[in-house]
């Protein structure tokens, strides 16, 4: 699946994860249960994930330590590569050119990223370093979002993706999937970072969203295909979300929300953090309001987010990133052909044109006014 969708299939051969990195991934997956227990013993997850292989086995392997070392020695990487191919994924390790350099800021950077949707696409959306690579913004928040929160998340996703900024999130219920949904509508420039295997839509109710993200964007994961996420995997994937993005935006978060962890990591990495303000009495906004008090930037809409992520006045007009069909339509409307009648000369074109006008309206480029006219909203 991913092989067909990848923009440049021959590149795939050169982008195969090396054995060491695959071994590391196997080890973390093997020790997943022990990591879970270690967390209960109040050991810090980030520190565990930063340990080298030997210490990891010694620290968490317990009675199985020797056995695990043996297995690691004799690991058959071809099996793992085959499983990756079968799942339609591509594996890229930190020695590959396709591996996003910005992840290197993490002390516990994942050894391998498993990508659905194509490694080249990942490069196009979040590859390279922070300074030179494509812009990316993480939009995260509570799973139990309010309708308003969902709406804000959707419009942020849409506005950012429409402006050519990659929307990174975790595909969780609530804010995360709303942000992905918005980005998907605006062309699909979005990356979902999953806690389990990148080939398994999680949560399962978002299977359709998963399909749409894979078809235009990417789904990535640190753990091997088919891996079923444990509790610790969720905060672990948050570090990848934060590191992939220039800016992390929190839409709604309660006082002890996982998205605050993402914001904290982002802040530790020296990245910008923004938050959408909410009523001071709303539990869903307690976390975001606290972030704002601590100095996060106020985000009201996509334009604020773009000011933060790309720079004030630096971002191009949003329309630059529209699909060509919509862009042409927008130009025609601004040239004065501002009614459906003026834009169409055959009945067979009417539906497509009307649909295009409505899409532009939904994306906030046009507004319908009296008499069936459309006016362009200045960016």
């Amino acid at each position, binding site marked *: 699946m991913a092989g067909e969708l990848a923009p440049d299939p021959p590149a795939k051969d050169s982008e195969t994860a090396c054995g060491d990195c695959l071994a590391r991934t196997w080890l973390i997956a093997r020790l997943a249960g022990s990591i879970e227990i270690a967390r209960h013993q109040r050991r810090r997850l980030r520190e565990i994930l930063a340990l080298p292989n030997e210490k990891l086995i010694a620290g968490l392997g317990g009675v199985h330590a020797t056995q695990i070392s043996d297995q690691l020695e004799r690991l058959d990487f071809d099996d793992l590569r085959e499983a990756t191919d079968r799942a339609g994924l591509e594996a890229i390790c930190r020695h590959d050119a396709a591996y996003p350099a910005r992840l290197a800021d993490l002390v516990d950077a994942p050894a391998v990223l498993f990508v659905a949707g194509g490694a080249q696409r990942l490069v196009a959306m979040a590859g390279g370093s922070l300074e030179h690579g494509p812009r990316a913004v993480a939009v995260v928040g509570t799973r139990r979002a309010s*309708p308003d929160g969902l*709406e804000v998340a*959707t419009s942020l996703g849409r506005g950012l993706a429409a402006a050519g900024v990659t929307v990174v999130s975790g595909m969780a219920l609530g804010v995360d999937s709303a942000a992905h*949904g918005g980005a*998907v*509508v605006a062309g699909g420039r979005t990356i979902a970072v999953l806690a389990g295997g990148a080939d398994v839509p999680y949560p399962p109710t978002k299977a*359709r969203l998963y399909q*749409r993200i894979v078809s235009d964007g990417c789904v990535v994961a640190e753990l091997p295909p088919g891996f079923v996420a444990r509790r610790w995997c969720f905060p672990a994937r948050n570090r990848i979300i934060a590191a992939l993005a220039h800016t992390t935006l929190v839409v709604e978060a309660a006082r002890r929300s996982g998205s605050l962890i993402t914001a904290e990591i982002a802040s530790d990495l020296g990245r910008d953090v923004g938050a959408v303000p909410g009523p001071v009495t709303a539990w869903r906004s307690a976390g975001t309001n606290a972030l704002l008090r601590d100095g996060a930037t106020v985000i009201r809409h996509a334009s604020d987010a773009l000011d933060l992520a790309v720079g004030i006045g630096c971002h191009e007009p949003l329309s630059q990133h529209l699909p060509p069909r919509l862009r042409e339509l927008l130009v025609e409307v601004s040239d004065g052909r501002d*009614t*459906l*009648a*003026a834009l*169409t*000369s*055959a*009945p*067979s*074109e*009417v*539906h*497509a044109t*009307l*649909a295009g*006008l*409505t*899409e532009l309206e*939904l994306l906030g480029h046009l507004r*319908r*006014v*009296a*008499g*069936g*006219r459309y006016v362009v909203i200045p960016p």
Partner: protein
Amino acid sequence: MLARVSTFTIDGLEPRHVTVEIDVRLGLPAFTIVGLADRAVRESRDRVHAAILNSGFEFPQKRVTVNMAPAWLRKTGPGFDLAIACAILAVGGHVPAEALERYAVFGELGLGGEIRACRGALAVAEGAACAGIAGLIVPRERALEAALVDGLDVVGASSLRQVTEILRGEEVAPAPEPQAAVVPAPARQPDLVDVRGHANVIETLTIAAAGGHNLLMSGPPGVGKTMLARRLPSILPPLSKTEALEVTRIHSIAGVHRGLGLVGERPFRAPHHLISASALVGGGSVPAPGEASLAHHGVLFLDELSEFPRPALEALRQPLEDGRVAIVRGQRTAIFPTRFMLVGATNPCPCGHAPAPRCRCNENDLARHARRLSGPLLDRIDLVVHVQRPSAEHLAQPPATRSEAVRERVLAARRRQVHRFDGTAALCNAHMDAQLLRRHVDLDEDADIPLVDVYRRGELSARGRDRTLRVARTIADLAGEQRVLREHVVAALGYRHEAADVVGAAA
């Protein structure tokens, strides 16, 4: 001496069996009619008297009492003349009484004995067939219409003398020519081939025709709203046999049926905006169908919609919602079917030029105009299309399409709906209620994203959402899709409207 003749009266749209009884006995010469007869029936005394004498028969110089049973039913119209005359002739021995048991008679008499056409022959024939009467004598002009009913021996007669001959069995009655199921529209209808530009209106008319949606056209004066609306019948599917019979019955009763047999074209009614509420939906002390019923299975075109009196527009609510209207008058209730497509045309503001700078209306004018259109009526209109002055380039182009081509698409879309609504009250997408919407509007998984989006932003009412879904269903049908895809929903959203969109109020 006593004689009985069967005839029928029309109560609303229903034929009612009436037995005309006549009693002739010695006494001072007199001629009385009893049995809740209206003026036209009471006047039939004089017509019957003269017609009998002028046909060369004798009028009994006795006391003649005519009773029309059932006595509680109000009898209206001149259709009893022939029955009364036949009864008198039966008493006088000019007509065999046994023959009158086989035939029902229906017709108005002239003083010279000729039989004049009267309204409702089809309904009368249906009533006769229902009542199990073998034959029916009707005015010759109406014989073809009455003969549409199966299992009834229909005879057309032109004079009273001829009726007596028929009843005596002397003349072999000329059978009315059998009628083809549906007569193809004979005259050339206005065709879309005459239209230049207006591609968006043509497409909207196509959707309206394909889904039976009500439509409002808004635009400045003289851009072609009326011209376009008149071309709607040319793209509607042909009447089915059942529909044609219903239309013929109503038109015959209302006296607007000009043809001979079945009505072949979908009705297109365009009443003037000075119409009263009862003329629009039906009414009168004797309930008669209004324009809404005359447009049954066809198009009701209200030009200058905002100029219609408010009560008339309000009265359209029930007919639009239920597809029928109940007229209640004292002890009687008449139910008229009103399954029409409403097509309205309006100026965007009282002067017609909003939002152009040359519009001279002030805010109050605009607000009043919006109030006229808003509310319950606009709620029942699925599609709003803005008609603009075609550009010079568009005028120079060849016609975009022909009615025949559009009709093909409409027919294909309708075929899907016939299958879909088999066994339900709905006939087309426009008739879908909330329950049918849930069952039949199968949204593709991402198709509701734009809908939810617009709804959340408060730019769409719950009713507007249903309208959008109905229109999206029709657009999908026109595209030949089983499921409603995102593109269909997005296009349908382009047709969404609130009152402010229609008029020039908000700029």
